[in-house]
């Protein structure tokens, strides 16, 4: 099963190598990985997408927790979460395909962010299904190159119903 694990780490040299090394040393595969600083500039968030049955993922999470610079590990798959990925897709554009390319991009609310006489570069952001669907539609036009960011994910805030007392307290 696929798991999206977000790992908050201290923003220090070598931390990424330790986290990645932990996967390679145990033969766990990383499907995608993204890293960037968080609100607190001394920490970064690593989002890792990996495959594995429950015992494997439990072991991965314990191992991640063991790394000294790791501050927090959350398996988002166990929660209600949102995930997004951005892709830049460079397509060949023969004159008779240019309109079609723009139409497809529009449907997906993707943007054409660069163009040359023979290519368009399309930028799309969305969940994996959306990105994959767009790629599939663009394929017949001829895809020259794709780069993807890998997924980032965040837990949804629990939709909490306020009690009357809470509303009153908030007003007071």
């Amino acid at each position, binding site marked *: 099963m696929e798991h999206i694990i977000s790992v908050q*780490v*201290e923003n220090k*040299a*070598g931390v990424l*190598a*330790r986290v990645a*090394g932990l996967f390679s*040393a145990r033969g766990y595969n990383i499907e995608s990985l993204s890293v960037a600083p968080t609100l607190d500039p001394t920490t970064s968030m690593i989002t890792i997408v990996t495959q594995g049955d429950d*015992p494997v993922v*439990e*072991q991965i999470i*314990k*191992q991640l*927790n*063991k*790394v*000294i*610079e*790791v*501050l927090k590990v959350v398996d988002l798959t166990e929660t209600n979460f949102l995930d997004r990925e951005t892709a830049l897709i460079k397509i060949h554009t023969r004159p008779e395909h240019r309109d079609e390319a723009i139409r497809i991009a529009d449907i997906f609310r993707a943007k054409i962010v660069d163009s040359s006489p023979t290519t368009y570069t399309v930028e799309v952001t969305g969940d994996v299904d959306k990105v994959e669907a767009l790629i599939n539609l663009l394929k017949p036009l001829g895809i020259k190159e794709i780069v993807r960011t890998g997924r980032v994910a965040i837990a949804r805030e629990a939709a909490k119903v306020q009690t009357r007392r809470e509303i009153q307290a908030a007003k007071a």
Partner: protein
Amino acid sequence: MKKTGAEIFLESLKQEGVKVVFGIPGGVVLKIFDVLHQQKDLDVILTRHEQGAAHMAEGYAKATGKAGVVLVTSGPGMTNIVTGLADAYMDSVPLVAFTGQVSTNLIGNDAFQEADNIGISRPCTKHNVLVKDVNDLARTIKEAFYIATTGRPGPVLVDIPKDVSTNKADFKYPEKVQVRGYNPTYEGNKYQIKQAAEEIKTAKRPVIYVGGGAVFSDAAEEVREVAELAQVPVTMTLMGLGSFPGAHPLCMGMLGMHGGYWSNMAMHHADLLIAVGARFDDRVTGKLSDFCPDARVIHIDIDPTSIKKNIHAHIPIVGDVKTVLRQLNVYLRAMDGKQSDLKEQRRPWREQIEEWKRAHPLRYEQGAKVVKPQFVIERVFEMTNHEGIVVTDVGQHQMWAAQYFRGAKPRTFITSGGLGTMGFGFPAALGAQKAYPDKLVLCITSEGSFQMNPQELATAAIYKLPVKIVLINNKFHGMVRQWQDLFYESRYASSYLGEIPDFVKLAEAYGILGLRALKPAEVEPVIREGLKHRGPVLMDFHVDPFENCYPMIPAGGAQHEMMLEDPPELRKVDRSGLAKKKAEEGEGVLPA
């Protein structure tokens, strides 16, 4: 007043209570060695090889529970300690290794003797840090000792560039240490512990299975208390030996691949397993699918990654072994007055274990002509009342030493378990001896392992470390030969070592007493003379080259399917003929 990095290094080590540093100097650490040279608070032991330094520090740490300290130069100095780091990581040995590094402005330039110390050591350290600024040095050292010695202990490497050791900074040793992402759990979950106590009371065939974790957390007393309160037989892993008295009526000795028949049978038939600071290594479990088929498992360990790694735990308890057992004992003590019932209730189980023991005890036959390796080891232990600190190398002699060890104290059986590092024994024995200059330290080794670090004979001689080396000389990589006999039709591929060198002469070359026993009648006199000698001694015992170590669970076999003696087809093989042929092929000379 400002101090140089080298001076800060020294002061920090003093603050940590370090008494000895093992190492070898080189270009980038000369400043540090120079500072160490001009003080008397801590000793520097100059070893003959950095690997020796690392194992000495391990031996020191395993014998004392304090962090062992290594100091080596960049490049080859660092790469030479990698085996020691990996060994310490596997066996949870608190080690702080300081490595020199080229100056910060040269890092990444392929400078002379530059190596990526952090990259190389990452997979075999608990933590490692490159110190880029002398202002960070004291805090980094404090954190290194803290991380190495707390939680599940392990090696920490601190990489110090040359300019960091010469630059100056204000020195103030931090009083407190706080590492953001590191908070080991010490207390166990109360609910789980209570649950465990309930199961222990009602179990019919319980076994306590103790690993190295009990030794590191100094929990011998607590283990004994659980065992006695609940009348549960105890078996130990190779790393756990010493955590329960060998002569105790509830003691079953070692389990696993070469453990006692009775202890493996007890495990196999147990209905409750209380795993204490042990990690279900494959050398213990044998075939996983057949391991303890009827047992519920209580697993106590400070490292959450050890729990449910390869065996399901019904009651997982994360915490320090000593603390958790104390919590557990509160519940067990509350059984008041019911102990005698319990004793009665467990009687059939203990009788069953005794029966297994009587059926297949450890055994060997010592004849008049050829010395049996087990005989030497058993006699050494008996003649020292099982009171020495025993340090072993890796191979058959290690397993025999473990089988015949009856010591009663933790930290008196020191061996390389997880990594199985040949060459560990002798330097580790020197480290233990350095920690306890007045105690008897026995190094049980064999010609194969000993030749992986014989250069440390110089260290023994120069620093007058009176280790008693018991060299079980079977002229083979014995354990390898055993597997070749059992699984490769006695084809001795690269396992015959022959009679080179003459170990007595080798010892003498270093100014160390060398003794030799060729016949059974010579064994005791040699041991007696060796033990009487005040300095280091090398006793070279020529033993039966073809003796095999049993019981044995063949790799991948189930724990109750032990081999108890040479299989009949092997007994038919004329191995002396094979040996003679080897000799004719020019691979050395075997005894007739």
